[in-house]
């Protein structure tokens, strides 16, 4: 246990370098290289960060689900630390997706907010996983915290598709950029989008690893404190 933080730091350095490089390339492509979209103009550049953040938010919450199931099955607190780390980073990316969505909607749709299914589902996601983080902070004891938050992590994720379809039947106006079977997007824009999504995914992995290391360190600290109280 004592060696974990140093080991994590060592392994993070390679990922850190790759992430910074990828983000620099993505920034160059998004802000300089890619042409403006014809009708939306410069605003269209928000799209590359918006999609990248939204995709990583879903990935993060899927990791929470997997780690929650794994925790209930194996009862290894490392899975719980992963669920906690991924939920924190997921809420961060959800916030970015919501903020960029709002800034994009204003000039393009002429409103700050629309009740479009994907945007609304993202808002519900934000509330679900903020609830998850509040739950974690309200449960004493690492074993019980792991158990209860794993149960909620599973319920929340199972709920998301039902939320999505119920909001979709309720109303829809989101642009279908990637319709099934065809890609209606210029090659430069597609490349920029893929690089941006890739860079954000690396950033997710890096932040998740750092949050995971923090969770493990806190866990080690709690144990040391407990041992001091006993001894």
């Amino acid at each position, binding site marked *: 246990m004592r060696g974990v933080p140093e080991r994590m730091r060592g392994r993070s350095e390679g990922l850190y370098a790759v992430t910074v490089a990828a983000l620099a390339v993505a920034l160059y492509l998004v802000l300089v290289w890619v042409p403006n979209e014809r009708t939306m103009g410069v605003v269209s550049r928000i799209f590359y960060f918006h999609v990248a953040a939204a995709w990583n938010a879903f990935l993060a919450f899927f990791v929470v689900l997997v780690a929650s199931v794994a925790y209930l099955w194996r009862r290894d607190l490392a899975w719980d630390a992963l669920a906690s780390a991924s939920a924190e980073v997921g809420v961060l990316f959800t916030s970015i997706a919501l903020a960029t969505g709002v800034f994009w909607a204003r000039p393009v749709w002429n409103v700050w907010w629309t009740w479009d299914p994907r945007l609304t589902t993202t808002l519900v996601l934000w509330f679900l996983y903020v*609830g998850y983080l*509040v*739950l974690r902070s*309200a449960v004493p004891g690492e074993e019980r915290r792991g158990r209860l938050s794993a149960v*909620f992590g599973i319920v929340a994720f199972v709920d998301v598709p039902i939320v999505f379809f119920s909001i979709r039947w309720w109303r829809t106006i989101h642009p279908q950029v990637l319709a099934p079977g065809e890609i209606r997007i210029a090659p430069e824009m597609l490349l920029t989008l893929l690089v941006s999504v890739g860079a954000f995914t690396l950033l997710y992995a890096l932040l998740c690893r750092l949050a995971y290391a923090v969770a493990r360190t806190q866990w080690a600290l709690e144990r040391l404190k407990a041992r001091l109280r006993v001894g």
Partner: protein
Amino acid sequence: MNFWSRTCAILWKDLRAELRSRETAGTTLVFALLAVLTFSFAFDPAAGTARQVLPGVLWVTVFFAGMLGMGRSMANERAADAFSGLLASPAEPEEVYAGKFLANLLFTGAVELVEVPVLLALFRAPAPAGGMGLPAVLALGTIGYVAVGTLLAALSANARAGELLLPLLLLPVAIPVAIGAVEATSALMAGAPPAEWMLWVRLLAVYDVVMLALPQLLFRYLLEG
């Protein structure tokens, strides 16, 4: 003793505790009626527009009253460490869940039985069309809400400040019920043909099945001590 007799034993225990203390159902009912009263000041019932907000008022009131009742029911188990008693009893966790679910469903249903006619009368709504349509939608919506609410109430009863935590966890999870039940109720009250509300009835049915199945897998992890 099989699944149903043990489930009914838990249900009977909750009903008897309620008959003795008269704590949950009475308080919840008064709360629901007060909420209806407050809403009738917020949306003037004499104005024609009030009928358009009626389905929303109905379900928001059911949601809040139901949440109070379910939170109370689990906090009672927590208070005297009755969870340990439930664990020591021959009932399996799934049977404890089923018994608590049925008790919560009965309490919430009883509140609706009084509250909905009062609401319709106060807002001078015409008797809803579609025969058993409104009771069916009420039942489907309430089953789904109470199914997931019972699970999440047991979860937050194990956390600090559980009564504060429950709404934070339950309301976002229950959004499909909020959408489906309100849309179906609106269509029924407008006298729309069944084709218009069957989609929402189907959504509620799917939600009910999922939220009744999940606790069968997950409830036992909440009772572990």
